[in-house]
């Protein structure tokens, strides 16, 4: 009498056929329960367009902050060899152009935010409800900063003696909005509470320090573009010291940010792993660490030692690229907290690692 046995596997069983010396043997391997658990994937909603926007807004605002402080302190950078031009009958003064062009960058970056929307022409709906959310407040902050910044930029072109107290107040307001813009890029991400990597007050601080370092470097580069730099200029030395200080602070904040996220939750740990050893490791180690932190410091040091401005140019490009990769890396590594029901099911069926 034959006995039919019905075997029910409740897990996938892998059969591996091995042919050794003509004999056929079979190896049965069952997956451990912890291997069946669902690994959360990083968010796919906000991608490179938002990263470009975050970068341009941060860098523009940062360079405006540094430029405005230089303007207030009456710091004289190297004079342009072409200090003024005649345009349509007006005599335009270009002395302040290299330090006040930040709002133009923000004005270029802001349309990227609109470009990412599902229905682009509806962007003004967000401006109509400023009290609802951080996305809406951001529209307002950015618009005010762009308008004020451009007004001050245009004003700097005309060598008039309009230096009344009204302008100083206006410059003060613009400076506050520049800080708000640089911080806002981080707050926008922080406001979405379910991503542990972003939901930390260190993120706006990280973006602010990165904005200041990339901003001061952008000013150095724009001065560099106008005339060969002289390393004896005390203003430039001050700017470079400031910029290096910001890069060092950025590195420290980045370390604190990652170690805090790693400790805070399981998905935070996944995010940090994704950056350090996962798919985003090239963006992190080569983009953020090498280009954004290491190269600029080393190249600037060498360029100062050998009085070589062309190396400073490469240091600048490297730092600016690193600033972009920082935004891109943080954006792409955003992993949401696990859905509570999924977590419950995985605990109930022992699909989670024991440690």
């Amino acid at each position: 009498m034959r006995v039919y046995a019905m075997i029910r596997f409740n897990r996938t069983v892998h059969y591996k056929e091995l042919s050794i010396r003509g004999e056929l043997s079979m190896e049965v391997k069952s997956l451990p329960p912890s291997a069946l658990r669902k690994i959360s994937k990083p968010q796919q909603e906000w991608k490179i367009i938002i990263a470009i926007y975050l970068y341009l807004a941060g860098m523009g605002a940062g360079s405006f902050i540094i430029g405005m402080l230089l303007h207030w302190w009456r710091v004289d950078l190297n004079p342009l060899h072409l200090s003024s031009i005649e345009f349509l009958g007006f005599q335009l003064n270009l002395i302040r152009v290299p330090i006040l062009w930040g709002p133009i960058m923000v004005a270029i970056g802001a349309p990227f935010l609109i470009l990412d929307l599902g229905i682009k022409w509806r962007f003004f709906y967000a401006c109509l409800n400023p009290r609802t959310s951080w996305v809406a407040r951001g529209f307002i902050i950015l618009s005010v900063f762009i308008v004020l910044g451009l007004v001050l930029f245009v004003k700097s072109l005309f060598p008039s003696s309009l230096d009344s107290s009204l302008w100083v107040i206006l410059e003060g307001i613009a400076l506050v909005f520049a800080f708000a813009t640089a911080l806002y890029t981080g707050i926008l991400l922080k406001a979405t509470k379910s991503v542990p990597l972003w939901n930390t007050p260190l993120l706006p601080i990280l973006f602010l320090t990165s904005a200041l370092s990339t901003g001061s470097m952008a000013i150095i580069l724009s001065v560099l573009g106008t005339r060969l730099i002289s390393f004896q200029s005390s203003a430039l030395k001050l700017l470079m010291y400031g910029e290096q200080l910001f890069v060092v602070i950025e590195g420290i904040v980045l370390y604190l940010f990652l170690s805090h996220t790693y400790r805070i939750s399981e998905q935070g740990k996944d995010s940090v792993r994704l950056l350090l050893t996962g798919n985003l490791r090239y963006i992190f180690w080569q983009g953020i660490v090498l280009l954004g932190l290491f190269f600029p410091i080393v190249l600037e040091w060498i360029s100062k030692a050998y009085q070589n401005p062309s190396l400073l140019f490469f240091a600048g490009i490297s730092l600016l690229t690193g600033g972009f990769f920082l935004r891109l890396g943080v954006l792409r590594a955003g992993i949401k907290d696990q859905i509570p029901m999924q977590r419950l099911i995985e605990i109930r069926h022992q699909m989670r690692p024991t440690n």
Partner: protein
Amino acid sequence: MEQKVLLVDQEKCTGCRQCEMVCSVYHTGASNPSRSRIKVVKWEQVGLYLPMTCNHCEEAYCVEVCPTKACHREPENGHCVVIDKNLCIGCRTCIIACPFGQPFFDHQERVTVKCDYCDGDPQCVAFCNVKAVSFVNADEAHLAKKREAAAKLADLLLKHTKG
């Protein structure tokens, strides 16, 4: 109007994905499960299926982050959270904010969509053959959960006293 909720019995679900199909047909007119408002999460290796849909949370993150108030609560419609398609700008902030992975971006309509209880008659409930999804009063759902918890507690106590 009394508040009603979708109650999911995960142990009954067979993973047939009928709910996804009818949801998509009802809302979009296309039998395309990728445009459905309910999604069945599967652990194929262990045969576990979990239909996931919007929880209409009391403190809804999607409502908090919406820049245009398109995502709002409707007190007259059983306190459910809905997205007004005519106001949505498609910024996808709600998708990132939701801890339950819920609102979905409809690539054809270019707006975010979510479960709205099919205006009071959820199609997933009507078409679920094994009754894994049911539409019940919120109080009843709480009662069922309390009963379940009490039964578990009784089991534990029994084991404890026998041990």
